[in-house]
């Protein structure tokens, strides 16, 4: 995690608070993500996991506290915010591939328009990435022509094309048919092995066990517990976490 000698955390959340009307969805969140770390956020629905994830690239604004990315507080808006977002990949639950663009165009849009890469170079890189996630043969199709698992792998390639410093995964497999979950998880495990910094909101305990460096358990807007996957799954400390695990691990 300190291979380039840089020990400052990539992301640091300090006393982050967020309300949706009367609902207090993030309560005094303090959390750091180190470079190269794979952090898995789990917990019951409505516990604030997705909001936390989306706050890191400011798709959700926060009401209090601050978020520091790569040494700088998150910009509030404008060009600076767009630049930050270009450095933080995001993979959504519902894929959100650009519906009017081909798979190839989905992957090259950011590099061409944001990074001002030449089309040829962007194309070459896109095909490499599509090869890596196993979709190269579908490059000229439209998103609606692909299965959910394929679309999500394209979404990962789209995020990778920006050479991001980290990638946020907001429940990447929750909208998939069961038989497509593994193909997406395999790509994510590969990324984790390659040292990508990842923050993953998921219900996939198998992924957490195999790929995570650390597990954060969130409920009712708070971080209830933080531990290594092994410790967390075999020896949860809090009743809330034990209760949650007993419900999901029994079957």
């Amino acid at each position, binding site marked *: 995690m300190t291979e380039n000698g840089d020990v400052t955390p990539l992301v640091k959340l300090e006393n982050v608070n967020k309300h949706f009307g009367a609902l207090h969805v993030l309560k005094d969140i303090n959390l750091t993500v180190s470079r190269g770390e794979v952090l898995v956020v789990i917990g019951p629905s409505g516990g604030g996991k997705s909001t936390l994830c989306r706050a890191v*690239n400011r*798709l959700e604004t926060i009401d209090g506290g601050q978020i520091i990315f790569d040494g700088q507080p998150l910009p509030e*808006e*404008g*060009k600076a915010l*767009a*630049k*930050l*977002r*270009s*450095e*933080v*990949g*995001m993979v*959504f639950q*519902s*894929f*959100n*591939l*650009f*519906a*009017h663009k081909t798979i190839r165009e989905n992957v090259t*849009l*950011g590099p061409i*328009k*944001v990074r001002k890469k030449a089309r040829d170079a962007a194309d070459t890189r896109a095909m490499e990435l599509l090869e890596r996630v196993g979709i190269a043969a579908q490059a000229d199709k*439209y998103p*609606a*022509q692909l299965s959910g698992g394929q679309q999500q792998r394209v*979404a990962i390639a*789209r*995020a990778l094309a*920006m050479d991001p410093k980290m990638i946020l995964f907001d429940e990447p497999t929750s909208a998939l048919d069961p038989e497509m979950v593994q193909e997406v998880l395999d790509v994510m495990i590969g990324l984790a092995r390659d040292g990508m910094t990842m923050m993953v909101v998921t219900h996939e305990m198998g992924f957490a066990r195999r790929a995570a460096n650390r597990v954060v358990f969130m409920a009712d807007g708070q971080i209830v517990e933080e531990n290594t996957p092994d410790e967390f799954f075999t020896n949860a400390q809090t009743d809330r976490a034990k209760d949650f695990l007993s419900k999901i691990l029994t079957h």
Partner: protein
Amino acid sequence: MDELIQYGPDLAVGFLNNIKLSLVIAVFSLIVGTVLAAMRVSPTPVLRAAGTAYVNVVRNTPLTLVLAFCYLGLSDTLGLIFSTEDPLMNSFWLAVLGMSAYTAAFVCEALRSGINTVPLGQAEAARAIGLTFSQSITLVIFPQAFRAVIAPLGSVLIAMIKNTTVVAAAGYTVESSNTMRTIFDTTGTSIPIFLGIVVSFLILILPIGWYTGRLARKLAVAR
């Protein structure tokens, strides 16, 4: 039938002027309407308010009043003159101004309903890869919104073409329906002339409805 042949050339010139007006207004109203729609969905409250106010005022004002305002208000009183030598040319551009301003409000609303068909996730994905607001709008949102509203935009276009028959209110008197009225004043009402103009408009407009319907199906975004 004789009067249709006798006045045919005048009426043809008038009808060509309807077409000329339509083409110019279509271009301007699409551009202005797109800008208005961008304003109405922009994150800046002032722009949103300005866009909303414009659409609500202009869309709810009768077209003849808008045109009369351009003619009597803007041109006569406030001195907006497009051409000093040729009053008809002046009126042509006043008519274009009034009708473009009016039609743009409808284009804006059609487009805005198209924007509502684009899932929020598309905008989030656009922002997440670092596109700015204007890039998200022009590269991701509007291309999908336009495809969703080609048929409604066709209807706006059709209404606009028919509306070019009231531009006498802006002083532009040489379009077909006004020419017809002038002929009727001198020779009496002529059913063949009337039907001739109706048929001309049908020939002009029917293909638009057909073509935009086809285009809408062809370009529809699959989700």
